[in-house]
């Protein structure tokens, strides 16, 4: 049962500011839920043995919103007991070890929110128009998620 006055909400945000796991998880807290599941994607300092200085993200912002709303709609179809969904993605320069994405989902019991978080981040990586540039000491490379079906990177 949904708690009165706590209708399901989707919180979607792109930000150049540092992301806060506390702030994102606070958005989805609900008195009728016993679970908040959280995923934090952080930036790594190495790729294929090369030192990564920083990552730079860019986005087709208005379409990001459209694609993330589709993910939220599908989460609610697959797991109807899910209460609130919050997805924050950082853009611009993200220093090593800081969060680039945070997903928080609440549900009455843990199984639904845990599954929904996994689905959410996997689908985000496959369909949402955001790009990551890895900056090394003297060059850079545009990354391609393996989940993206039109990526044809030979690995």
């Amino acid at each position, binding site marked *: 049962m949904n708690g009165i006055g706590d209708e399901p909400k989707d919180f979607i945000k792109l930000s150049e500011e540092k992301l806060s796991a506390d702030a994102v998880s606070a958005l989805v807290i609900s008195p009728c839920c016993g679970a908040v599941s959280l995923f934090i*994607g952080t930036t790594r300092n190495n790729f294929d043995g090369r030192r990564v200085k920083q990552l730079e*993200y*860019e*986005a*087709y912002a*208005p*379409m990001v919103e*459209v694609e993330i709303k589709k993910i939220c709609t599908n989460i609610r179809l697959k797991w109807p007991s899910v209460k609130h969904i919050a997805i924050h*993605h950082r853009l611009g320069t993200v220093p090593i070890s800081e969060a*680039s*994405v945070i997903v928080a989902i609440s549900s009455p019991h843990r199984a639904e929110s845990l599954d929904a978080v996994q689905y959410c*981040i996997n689908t*985000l*990586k*496959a*369909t*949402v*128009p*955001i*790009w*990551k*540039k890895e900056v090394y000491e003297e060059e850079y490379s*545009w*990354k*391609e*998620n393996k989940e*993206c079906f*039109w*990526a*044809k*990177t030979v690995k």
Partner: protein
Amino acid sequence: MTCEVIVLYFARSADLAGVRTETISVPQQLTSLQLWDEIVKRHSRLAAIQDQVVFAVRQEYVLLGDQLLVLHTGDEIAIIPPVSGG
């Protein structure tokens, strides 16, 4: 009949085109592959990523191929290289 559409370039496609946004004149009806060819005529370096790119036409994904597009002046066409969010 032609129309003026806004083309947005992202990530590697922006590096190759050397521009992030421009307005171009294209036929109102053409396939997505013909639209790609129009864009490559302006930025030949984009040919390198033809098999690793899709369009977003009015914010909906469209693959390069036979799909007929009906465009109007002011429509937004984005060049979408493989995404890497997260």
